[in-house]
């Protein structure tokens, strides 16, 4: 454009030059043309500079535009797909063959796969989560194993209530205790503590509603309450209206300087059981079935303390946790005849895990239960009533290539069954694919 202007100017100028036909005029005209050329070149340069600046400005402005409409967002209908992650967990386990594994002195909660030895792909967890709309967020966790897919969790959570209130409904892991809300892949040992196995089989979840309130104080104070179906051990599924299980808890926590943080909690869980069956042994040594109907009240106290130099857990950190439970069950036990049944049992565990490099961690866990007071009423005349203190000590070391992969070796000396000392070795892997999940404190 500019060039053609210059040429046009030159043409006009040369026409004028011919018309005049004078040498002196020619020199003057040439000088004029040179001036014009210079003038145009300067203007062209100025225009080009302006263009470059404008381009730079658009380049700078672009990301802001990109942010409001990210490239993926225009990709089509799948752009609203939820965050997906898949957790692969597998084990190689060596231990004694005990067909009906249980915990002596405790009503069996039925720990799934407790006697599985050798290689196993364990459970594969599929996690799907997304914001539903500005008001709700949803999450589902499906645990898949051979021939089954269990809905571990399927809930929605409030985002827009405010005032420190959190509402959750659906199937969820109860907020009682400390370890209960953690999924197996987030735990520091390959198996749940004996205390959780005795209390819930592994952990307690139910279908229902959870309401939490966080106090507006610099100190973390959280209250929670749950109402639910209460279908899982120690409750049973009952065909009735209303709630079968309820829980209340309070959590308090804070930091101590930059390097330490802690949380303590106290929880209460009440469930009802109706014909909760289990095997008992009669005085002749034969197995007989008993069914319990009644109330179960569990109290839990938990404490967690974490330390990291300057609060930077990446290179070194230490985590100590301990929980205690006490449970009272009151009701009727039917074997051949119905009679009163009342137990008060307790247990605790304490564990410490030290991460000494970004990749390596090592941990110790010690746990003990007390079969406590077991009053079988009239049934006591015909059944073996064990009194025992199950114990277990575990040591583990694990290696993480990144935040998403971990290999763990664990040794445990398990004395949870009277008369048996089981030396257990477990090699476990945990691999997380997909969305970067965040773990609770």
């Amino acid at each position, binding site marked *: 454009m500019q060039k053609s202007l210059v040429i046009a100017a030159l043409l006009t100028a040369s026409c004028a030059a011919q018309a005049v036909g004078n040498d002196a005029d020619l020199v003057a005209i040439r000088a004029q043309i040179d001036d014009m050329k210079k003038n145009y070149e300067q203007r062209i340069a100025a225009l080009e500079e302006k263009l470059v600046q404008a381009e730079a400005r658009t*380049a700078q402005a672009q990301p802001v535009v990109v942010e409001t409409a990210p490239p993926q967002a225009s990709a089509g209908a799948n752009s609203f797909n939820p965050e997906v992650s898949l957790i692969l967990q597998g084990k190689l386990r060596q231990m004694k063959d005990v067909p009906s594994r249980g915990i002596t002195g405790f009503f069996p909660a039925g720990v799934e796969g407790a006697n599985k030895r050798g290689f196993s792909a364990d459970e594969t967890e599929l996690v799907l989560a997304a914001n539903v709309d500005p008001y709700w967020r949803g999450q589902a966790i499906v645990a898949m194993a051979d021939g089954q897919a269990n809905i571990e969790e399927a809930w929605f959570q409030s985002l827009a*209530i405010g005032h420190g209130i959190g509402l959750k409904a659906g199937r969820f892991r109860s907020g009682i205790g400390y370890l209960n809300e953690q999924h197996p892949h987030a735990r520091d040992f390959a198996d749940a503590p004996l205390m959780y196995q005795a209390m819930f089989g592994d952990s307690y979840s139910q279908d229902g509603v959870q309401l*939490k309130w966080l106090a507006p104080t610099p100190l973390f104070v959280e209250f929670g309450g749950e109402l639910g179906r209460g279908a899982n051990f120690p409750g049973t599924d009952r065909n009735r209206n209303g709630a079968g299980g309820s829980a209340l808890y309070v959590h308090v926590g*804070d930091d101590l300087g*930059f390097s330490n*943080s802690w949380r303590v909690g106290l929880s209460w869980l009440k469930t009802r059981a109706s014909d909760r069956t289990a095997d008992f042994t009669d005085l002749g040594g034969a197995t007989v079935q008993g069914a319990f109907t009644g109330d179960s009240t569990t109290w839990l106290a938990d404490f967690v303390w974490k330390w990291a130099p300057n609060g*930077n857990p*990446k290179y070194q950190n230490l985590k100590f946790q301990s929980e205690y439970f006490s449970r009272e069950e009151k009701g009727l036990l039917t074997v051949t005849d119905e009679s009163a049944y009342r137990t008060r049992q307790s247990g605790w565990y304490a564990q410490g895990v030290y991460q000494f490099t970004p*990749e390596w961690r090592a941990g110790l866990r010690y746990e003990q239960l007390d079969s406590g007071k077991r009053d079988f009423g009239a049934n006591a005349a015909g059944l073996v009533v064990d009194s025992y203190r199950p114990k277990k000590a575990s040591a583990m070391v694990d290696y993480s290539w990144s935040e998403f992969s971990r290999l763990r070796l664990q040794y445990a000396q398990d004395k949870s069954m009277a008369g048996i000392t089981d030396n257990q070795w477990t090699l476990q892997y945990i691999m997380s694919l997909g969305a970067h999940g*965040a773990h609770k404190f």
Partner: protein
Amino acid sequence: MRQLFTLIFLLVVAVLPAHADLRVFATVPEWGALVREIGGDKVQVYVATSALQDPHRIEARPSLLAQARQANLVVAAGAELEVGWLPLVLRDSGNAAIQPGQPGNFSAATYVSRLEVPSVLDRANGDVHAAGNPHIHLDPRNVLKVGEALTARLAELDPAQAAAYRNGFKTFSGKWQAAIVRWEKEAAPLRGVPVLVHHSSFVYLANWLGIKEVGTLEPKPGIEPTSNHLMALLSRQQTQPARMVLRTAYQQDGPSQWIAGKTGIPAVMLPYTVGGTPEAKDLFGLFDDTVQRLLKGLR
């Protein structure tokens, strides 16, 4: 029971009006410092992390939940820097105002052009961020852009003090622009200087000052340096020599000291953010000290 409710009610009422100031929860020290520059005494700033903490690896501690619960505005770096903890803190805070998409949720990275935006998302490339490199604050021109957006956000949330925020930003912006000119002049000898870095924490700094990043000690983002990778960097030093090796205050010094010992180039610890060194007391101190430490490394 009724007494308990009365007590709780009184507690809430007692707590609420005591904090008329805008309460800001900043995830990282640099943005906390910027809010202070703009908001002055009109804002109450809580900074969730320190310069000695890796902002990628923070736990959703109870104290963070308690602070987020009371915040009117969360100022985050964004670009997935805090993906491992902030979403959980926001959701469990019971605070509707600071949820993503609300005016009370501000992500700094949204307002600048980001570098290293990956074309392929695959964890085989390490802990990459889909939205690009999130360490945007080490280019002071970005600080200005974020500051402008932040001022608008503060004014939106607290209209009564809007003028104060605008004045605060105007004062800051004037001083900051003058400082940029000074830093650029001082840092002129750094142009074209090849460096090694521990993690790609200094991409924006390098881009601004024309420093040439020739390698990272981490084999992949988020994966700790391995001896094989360090050996490879060492042999590359013959053909593509770096002049210094940079790390942040929160990164381990071992790997960069090892490189320094083998090659004789200086290992330079940069404050990275406010509070990373005693000199980096505020944003100005952060850049003053960063430039000085780089120049010292060059000598």
